[in-house]
């Protein structure tokens, strides 16, 4: 518990002013523009959008600037902003199969319809610090190919056709979809709710859990069926129009993990799935999310729930970095009264302890 304290007003105002000053840094250095952040800190902007759970690159760039580059603080600002806006409704489910992908790789088939498209990736770079960048070198214009990209159907469709992978349950249209921002989290949580929570979950937390499944804490033997990144159209049907309005394109990253085959007396052995998605270019996050999604399906497949990544309450109650930081950071608020109570208790116990010790000494003499 914390109590209201008075008297810090001037100190708080000055602290905020000092913060603004420190954020600006050396005033001899040019001020950072939002366009620079949006265009050149792209993956940071994407991460703030994903964990802030709001796709708006300009807003995320501003939040990053205001937060001095602190991701969780920026996420906090974005989440606070979204609470001031009315919700118009839910989009038509995005068709990621129709994505205009700039990257698409599969680790399970070398040759697949649409092919392997590396796109702008850090993979195969040597991770050597590039001092030319420090010198302000402009990169060359990228190569173009005249060969057009072919359609890229989901890889899992290939396995699906042969019945070698569990089919995604296509629920009847109009069935209610859980929404974390509207109903409180309740356990057991259905898969749609788990995916929503993981989608905005902290990348570091979800990554660590995904990694833990690989190290044997809820092992699923995953293969990357496919990763794709690109533009996806978002459509919305306004009540007053009655047809789908294209709102524009968002960049999405999608990952499908294909995991350990299983079977039962009634179902033949087949592969199972884990799914991950992130706003912008969030490959690591989408992969980790897909691993954790699969781990959380343990009960559905009759697997023992033994590892942290399989425990939905553990995962879902702790994956949101805003909640985590709120509870951890609240410890710095005044707890003067609580502590006084604790202090009194320790003094009393101490006195009792000393009295007992003195009694024992006397008895011994």
């Amino acid at each position, binding site marked *: 518990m914390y109590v209201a304290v008075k008297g810090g007003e001037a100190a708080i105002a000055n602290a905020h002013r000092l913060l603004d000053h420190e954020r600006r840094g050396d005033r001899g250095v040019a001020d950072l523009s939002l366009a620079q952040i949006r265009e050149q800190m792209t993956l940071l902007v994407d991460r703030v959008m994903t964990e802030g759970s709001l796709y708006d690159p300009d807003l995320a760039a501003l939040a990053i600037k205001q937060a001095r580059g602190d991701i969780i603080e920026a996420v906090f600002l974005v989440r606070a902003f979204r609470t001031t806006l*009315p*919700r*118009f*409704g839910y989009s038509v489910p995005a068709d990621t199969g129709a994505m205009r992908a700039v990257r698409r790789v599969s680790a399970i088939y070398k040759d697949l319809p649409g092919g392997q498209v590396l796109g702008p990736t850090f993979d195969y770079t040597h991770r050597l610090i590039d001092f030319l960048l420090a010198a302000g070198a402009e990169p060359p214009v990228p190569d173009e190919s005249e060969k057009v990209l072919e359609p890229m159907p989901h890889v899992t469709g290939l396995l699906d056709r042969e019945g070698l992978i569990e089919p995604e349950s296509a629920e009847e249209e109009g069935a209610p979809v859980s929404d974390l921002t*509207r109903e409180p989290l309740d356990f057991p949580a259905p898969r749609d709710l788990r995916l929503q929570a993981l989608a905005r979950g902290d990348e570091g937390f979800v990554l660590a859990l995904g990694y833990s499944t690989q190290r044997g804490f809820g092992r699923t033997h995953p293969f990357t069926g496919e990763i794709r990144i690109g533009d996806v159209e978002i459509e919305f049907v*306004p*009540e*007053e129009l009655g047809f789908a309005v294209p709102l524009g394109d968002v960049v999405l990253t999608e990952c499908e993990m294909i995991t350990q085959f299983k079977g039962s007396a009634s179902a033949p052995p087949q592969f199972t799935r884990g799914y991950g998605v992130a706003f912008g270019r969030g490959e690591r996050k989408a992969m980790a999310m897909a691993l954790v999604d699969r781990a959380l399906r343990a009960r559905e497949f009759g697997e023992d729930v033994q590892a942290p990544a399989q425990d939905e309450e553990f995962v879902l109650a702790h994956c949101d970095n805003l909640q985590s930081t709120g509870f951890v950071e609240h410890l710095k608020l005044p707890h003067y009264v609580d502590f006084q109570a604790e202090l009194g208790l320790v003094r009393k116990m101490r006195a009792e302890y000393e009295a007992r010790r003195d009694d024992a000494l006397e008895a011994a003499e």
Partner: protein
Amino acid sequence: MSVAFSNPVFDSQRVFRTAMNALARPGKLQPFDAGVRPPEGLPAEIAALALSLADHETPLWLDAALTQSTDVLDYLRFHTGAPIVRHPVEAAFALVCDPALCPALMSFTLGTADYPDRSTTVLIQTDTLRSSDSHTLRGPGIAGTSVLRAEPLPPGFVREWAENRRYFPRGVDVLFAADGWLVGLPRTTEFTGA
């Protein structure tokens, strides 16, 4: 189609504040400037409340007089985005412009024990709202007792209200509107004949 609030943010905040004060001070008349000119058949006060309170997540139930007007339906659909439902029990808000057409209060949803807030709020347009002794009110937010004359009331309202109170903390809340006035009757308030 008519336009809604001229300044959606400030107008809806103002209306919300009036509704909040009405429910915090049950039975006390709140001056209420609706600030909208809705289509024929939809009283301005009810329209203003619907525009402020309803959105695509709050289903609306309308009385038979309102559902007859396509202008009213189009107006509410366009400006609130709220689905319009057929059964009172599905409604987050019920719009009653003719008290004689108000269904039994128990036919609305009373919320659940876990979420008593998920009950219907019933907005009723009356001809007269006055602080004179037709009915007596008692409960939180009222010092001692207060009096209210709201006419006409839906048939059997006093009896149904007593029944509504028995389900506390579940139960519907009511807002009575009249030309330029708003009065709140939350589920915590006793409402008896004078």
